[in-house]
């Protein structure tokens, strides 16, 4: 496929392809972070993760509609407001769900799977009733669309760079919260030994609620960011859920580093293979590789060493 191209052209294409891989990596990390917290740290299989993302996307849609009609001057920066609101909305819904449903189901992971799957169906139908069955178009500020020409032939999409920056910021923030703050210490204590954590005076119920809320809130931000690259409809969340679980499970459920490593592996494999093979074949080969590795290493790439 490369005959008749100059070396410079090929170089540019590979550079752009490298960026494509990095962008896919950021997208995967952003999707998976919220779930890694909820599934990895709390052991709750949250099938409604995609719907929390789409809630964030709808909040962004409402924001763009509202601001373009009432405060057009703010439009170029509305995206930041939208992301903050998406975090609040999804986080609040997450805490409500935890309070109303999840807290009765700890230690019963298979039941949380069914319950949250039911929740995802309910949320989809709510979105459909409120926003209509059709997809909505989220209008983005002009500066987010288009590309930067790095050299004459290398062009990098701005929204890709934006997702990369956002992912980095959120990852750093989560690292700081989980591993460098007192609250994060509490979360980790509760996850490792609930009874003991309670005994030393940590309010475990409160920790559970906020952790679940945090995970859902991050999902909301991810959904908000994905309005730049994907669709916003009642069932769009379903598009992300499989990849998200794949990344988290492959990485080793309890390890945030594992999630990142796994996102990197899968995204690079997929984007490289997509370039050289056809799209469907690339997907099949990626999934096959993951299955084989999980057969050899059922606990995932990385595993936290805890005493059971």
């Amino acid at each position, binding site marked *: *496929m490369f005959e008749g*191209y100059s070396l410079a*052209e090929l170089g540019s*294409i590979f550079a*752009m*392809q490298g*960026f*494509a891989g990095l*962008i*896919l990596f950021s*997208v995967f990390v952003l999707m998976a972070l919220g779930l890694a917290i909820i599934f990895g740290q709390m052991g709750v299989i949250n099938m409604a993760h995609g719907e929390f993302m789409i809630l964030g996307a709808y909040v962004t849609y409402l924001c763009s509609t509202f601001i373009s009609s009432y405060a057009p001057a703010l439009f170029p920066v509305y995206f930041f407001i939208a992301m903050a609101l998406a975090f609040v909305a999804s986080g609040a819904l997450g805490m409500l769900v935890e309070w109303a449903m999840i807290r009765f189901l700890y230690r019963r992971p298979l039941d949380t799977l069914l319950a949250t799957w039911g929740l995802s169906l309910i949320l989809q*139908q709510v979105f*459909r009733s409120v926003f*209509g*069955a*059709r*997809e*909505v*178009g*989220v*209008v983005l500020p002009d500066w987010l*669309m*288009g*590309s930067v*020409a790095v050299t004459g032939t290398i*062009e990098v*999409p*701005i*929204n*890709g760079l934006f997702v990369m920056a956002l992912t980095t910021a959120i990852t750093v923030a989560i690292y700081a919260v989980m591993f460098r703050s007192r609250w994060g210490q509490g979360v980790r204590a509760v996850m490792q030994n609930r009874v003991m954590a309670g005994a030393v005076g940590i309010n475990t119920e409160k920790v559970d609620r906020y952790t679940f809320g945090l995970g859902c809130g991050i999902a909301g931000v991810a959904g908000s960011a*994905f309005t*730049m*690259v*994907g*669709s*916003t*409809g*009642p*069932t*769009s969340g*379903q*598009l*992300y859920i499989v990849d998200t679980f794949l990344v988290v499970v492959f990485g080793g459920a309890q390890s945030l580093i594992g999630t990142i490593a796994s996102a990197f592996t899968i995204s690079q494999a*997929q*984007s490289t293979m*997509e*370039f050289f093979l*056809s*799209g*469907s074949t690339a*997907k099949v080969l990626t999934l096959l590789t993951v299955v084989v590795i999980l057969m050899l290493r059922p606990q995932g790439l990385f595993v936290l060493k805890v005493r059971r």
Partner: protein
Amino acid sequence: MSSDKINADKTIGGLPSPLRRKLLLGMAALPAVGLLPRGALAQALPTDAVNTTKLAVTDSTVKVGILHSTTGTMAISETGSVQAEKLAIAQINEMGGVLGRKIEVIQEDGASDWPTFAEKARKLLVEDKVAAVFGCWTSASRKAVLPVFEQYNGMLYYPTFYEGLEQSKNVIYTGQEATQQILAGLDWVTKEKGAKSFFLIGSDYIWPRTSNKIARKHIEMHGQKVVGEEYFPLGHTQFNSVINKIKLTKPDVIYASVVGGSNVAFYKQLKAAGIDLNKQTLMTISVTEDEMLGIGGENIAGAYACMKYFQSLKNPNNEKFVAAFKKMWGGESVIGDVTQAGYLGPWLWKLTAEKAKSFDVDKIAAASPGIEFTGAPEGYVRVHENHHLWSKTRVGRARTDGQFDVVFETADLIEPNPFPKGYQ
């Protein structure tokens, strides 16, 4: 009432005012439409004569089914078809119904699930004994209900453009089959843009694959080149790699049949990657005004779509149709190709029943070929022997406001050819 007269002046009338609707309901015995007393036609055509197969037909009513997904992932697409079919039925009822009988609708939800479609089809035919069903959207749902319609001898009016390779006594296909939609568009882009190379990209299921097979044959038959052919799983959202491949192969035309949520991702990422559709020719066979809502006009403006109907078509039928549709379903609604094809179903059925002077499915099936509908929003259509429609094909150019400028239309109606020789 001759069908010519219907075609000429009544087809596209608006909806009755609320008051008039009330009058119609309340004083069914009084003169309702024209000066004919209601039921005069029904008396001229007694129920025993127009219904020899125990369908749900009385002296004053006839039952039909609407079978689409109003929940689940396909609700996005199928909502428009339901709206169009209900509009057509409301307009037909306003004119006095079919063979003097009011149409009553039984609506079932296929719930985006193919076995559910089959089950609901069986219910409509066996329990409700409907005279006709307007429904289905995806090929998968049609394939699921086809054995049911053939077993219980029902009549299905199917609105979606599809891949062809099918023909049944029990189905009237009101959308285009693949060759009707594809060939004229390819010829146009070749002539107009001097296209020599094509990059085919689609979602991975039967319709894009069959359509691209036809497109590839046609392209290669004319000495042009396919420089890439790619399929992505339904719901795929990451197109950056394939966009790089497109940049590498520099095709004259990107030929796209990506569907559903993937569509939105594809066009947003094309734009973000710096591919300007005003410079790079892109032709799609899967983006209608409905899809434009989700994609956003600013992300796809400049692309060409190839199908038989666009909301912006300028003809008196269409202007009245669009006005009536917006009046019934709200000024914000948009009308895509399939929605218009859905609107044709009830009208074609009415005209056929009046020609056959019967609701019997066998007689409707036999009388269908040759049925003409001059009131169609897309312009004149005619039913072919093979139960597909003769129709024109048009090319529209996407605008930022979510509508299309029609830039080309074939001079003649194109013959439907669901089993194209040399293309398989």
